[in-house]
């Protein structure tokens, strides 16, 4: 029995470690390449650590050839604006759907459900036209506006609010709070854990979004991180991998570091994707 247990444990670790090497390999290789000079990158041997360290050259090139810091800043600004407006718009609506009785509630909820089924790419062409008509192409506004109303956020918060006891709201009403005050002073604070998960979901989703920025952004300085990497790559024309890998390290780092710091929350937030599809 003990020998069997040991054999199984060895098997488990062997398989999982082998898999983990494959899963982490690209990250390790990206990091390793970003530290190497060109002759080592183009050499025919695989080494993890460079013989001659070229980190300063590669990262220096990455930061001077393209505005990497600007891309990251764009990512933060765009995702921040999107998330705050999503909360501002979804939370009151979710409260009304969950806790108030009014004509049209059923219809509104049905629309939310229909909205949940529509993949984000479907309305892209008319949205592009709207942005064009409004003269907003190639601006932050074009990146933010189409995402300000998250059906998924409404749905998620509504489900959460339904678990909040009615007594809490009745007590608040007896204490003289109006409905707006109830939304922001009572419901929002109770919803913080759910909002955090949704925040991570929204952040990962919008930080990584590529199709929409690709369509509406032309100016280099307005690129979001994924679009920025692609701009970088087309400038490099695929010849100098060192700086390009340095660039991808910089672009990937924020989410990866955030994930490693708050694994549980991240996994919770991203698995919400399972519900959204």
């Amino acid at each position: 029995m003990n020998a069997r247990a040991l054999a199984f444990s060895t098997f488990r670790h062997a398989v999982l470690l082998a898999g983990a090497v494959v899963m982490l390999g690209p990250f390790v290789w990206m990091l390793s390449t970003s530290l190497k000079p060109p002759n080592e990158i183009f050499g025919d041997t695989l080494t993890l650590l460079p013989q001659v360290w070229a980190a300063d050259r590669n990262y220096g090139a990455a930061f001077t050839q393209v505005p990497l810091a600007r891309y990251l800043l764009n990512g933060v600004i765009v995702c921040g604006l999107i998330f705050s407006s999503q909360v501002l718009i979804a939370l009151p609506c979710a409260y009304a759907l969950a806790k108030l009785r009014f004509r049209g509630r059923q219809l509104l909820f049905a629309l939310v459900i229909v909205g949940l089924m529509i993949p984000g790419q479907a309305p892209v062409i008319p949205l592009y036209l709207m942005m064009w008509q409004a003269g907003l192409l190639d601006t932050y506004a074009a990146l933010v506006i189409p995402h300000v109303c998250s059906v998924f956020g409404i749905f998620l918060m509504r489900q959460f609010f339904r678990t909040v006891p009615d007594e809490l709201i009745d007590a608040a009403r007896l204490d003289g709070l109006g409905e707006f005050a109830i939304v922001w002073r009572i419901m929002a604070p109770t919803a913080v854990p759910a909002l955090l998960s949704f925040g991570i979901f929204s952040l990962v989703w919008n930080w990584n979004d590529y199709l929409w920025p690709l369509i509406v952004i032309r100016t280099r300085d307005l690129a979001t991180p994924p679009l920025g990497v692609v701009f970088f790559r087309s400038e490099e024309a695929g010849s100098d991998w060192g700086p390009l890998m340095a660039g991808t390290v910089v672009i990937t780092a924020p989410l990866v570091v955030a994930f490693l710091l708050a694994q549980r929350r991240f996994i919770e937030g991203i698995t919400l994707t399972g519900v959204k599809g």
Partner: protein
Amino acid sequence: MASVAQGSVPRQPVSEAHRAAARMEAFVAWALAGPAFFLLILLLLGPTVAVVVMSLTDWLFGATSFNWIGLENFAAIFGDRSFWRSLRNTFVYVGIVTPLSVGIGLGVALLIEAGTSLRSFYRAAYFLPVASTLIAMSIVWEFLLHPTVGAVNVMARALGFSGTHWLQNPDTVLPALALIGTWQAIGLNMVLFLAGLKSIPRDLYDAAAIDGVDSAWERFRRVTWPMLGPASMFVVLITAIRSFQIFDSVQVLTQGGPAGASEVLLFSIYREAFSYLRAAHAAALTVIFLAIVVTLTLVQARVMDRRVHYG
């Protein structure tokens, strides 16, 4: 009882006050939900309807006029070999990514749960690709798959294989992209399965052990798998839905090439609309894309419903 209630308070004013309160509540509710309702129509539902309408015209981006041409766009699409190739490629991609990433995700989850050591390390390692930016990692994969200096070919050569230009070879480009997609999808499936495994009551395994279920395989077949069944159906469907929306890696790495060997549905839509400016044609393709995704989503919703009734 009723007479007591009537006797103490006059009936009419009560119901009047009630109605006023209900009106007030409705007014407040619409004030709260209105902005979301308006934006939902403006930014999602309206444009989606517009896509359907647009698919019935011959409008080109920038044109000042258009004609209604009924289903002609669809007729043209269905008669077009390249559409069928793009649809086929998309399904091949889904057909590779879904079983691989679900199977591996399940296996990894089972192995992680089967022991106690290094659990969180493994979970983090397998989940990391999900949390990273796919576009950036696609470029890293492009480097790994580089014909001369890429790690994959260097290793292949070291083992005596010749390797190939994975992303330029029409035979390997789609599997190579699917490999990247699988690599990215495993983590999410693993986490979903881990949650499923955690929700299986320990008592059930104990009862099974007493009932005589004592090999690992029997335990899996008699308890784990039936308990996981509905969850795995769900995982399969969401993986299919997500991988059906393949676009990023194709746009960055292959542009649908070589010779259309990696052309997928979303990429066709993107190119029709924003390179060839054939907006109506692209809209018709979008309608087809939408129909497929919505169908998959409806199936998924049914599966989720069943899971709720499962008890």
